[in-house]
């Protein structure tokens, strides 16, 4: 998707379309649901104000903007500790325990691997698109993803 200046309606549509994945992505960087939502709203309110022009892919722009806002948030609130992390993945019926284990396992992954997994799985981004968010090569993005999956598999292994 490629756009220039966005109307408020376009912005709201983008929020509907990418809000969940972007929230998960913000969650992969900051700790706590409230902080992740703050970051997400900050990015979209800036877009609603209408003084931001998007050149190139809107998806890449959104993920980059969320990443920058999340890093700024981390820098400004480095001393704060989230009182509650809250759930950021909705589990299907019967998989609630797996959901909790998965969130915990994701939290334990190195940040760069966790972010690529979120982008690829829940952001539905190809490795080329994910690589554009970080200015890295698609091969690097793919290798981070593979390492991340391997660690995730290890962490989700039942205790024997």
């Amino acid at each position, binding site marked *: 998707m490629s756009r220039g200046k966005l109307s*408020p309606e376009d*912005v*709201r549509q983008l*929020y509907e379309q990418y*809000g*969940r*994945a*972007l*929230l*998960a992505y913000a*969650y992969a960087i900051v700790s706590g*649901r409230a902080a992740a*939502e703050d970051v*997400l*709203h900050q990015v*979209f*309110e800036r877009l*609603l*104000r*209408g003084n931001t022009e998007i050149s190139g892919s809107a998806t890449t722009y959104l993920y980059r903007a969320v990443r920058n806002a999340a890093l700024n948030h981390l820098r400004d609130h480095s001393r704060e500790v989230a009182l509650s992390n*809250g*759930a*950021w*993945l*909705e*589990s*299907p019926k019967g*998989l609630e325990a*797996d*959901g909790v284990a*998965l969130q915990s396992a994701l939290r334990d992954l190195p940040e760069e691997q966790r972010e690529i*997994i979120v982008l690829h*799985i*829940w952001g539905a981004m190809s490795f080329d698109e994910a690589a554009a968010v970080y200015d890295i090569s698609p091969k690097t993005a793919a290798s981070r993803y*593979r390492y991340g*999956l391997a660690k*995730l*598999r*290890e962490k*989700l*292994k*039942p205790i024997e």
Partner: protein
Amino acid sequence: MDPNVHDDELEAFLRQFQPAKPSALPEGSPRTGLFSVRPHVWIAAAALLVCLGIGLAMRSFDPAPIDNPAAASDARLMHEIVTHLSRPLAEPMTPLLATFPPDEYARRQLSTTSAAEPRGKR
């Protein structure tokens, strides 16, 4: 989970979980223009206006008494004091010089000159 599970299966497992829905964006368009200015800017502007108002009020206040003779007399006295204090420093010296007898001054000047004259003639 089976530790030998393939990447495809692991991905399928992960995709069963959906990211949580974020809360709705605030309704209405965000504040723009003057209303988007942060509160501390408003406070600073208000303080500046108050200072400006006080300054103008003090400027327009005329301290010169017109109707009150006693106050007018005070003002005249104040004016004299200020005039007196702002006189050049040399002026207060005049009475001091006046106490020095002019004849004595002239005599001293004369004696100094006449004592120097013979040396010049030599």
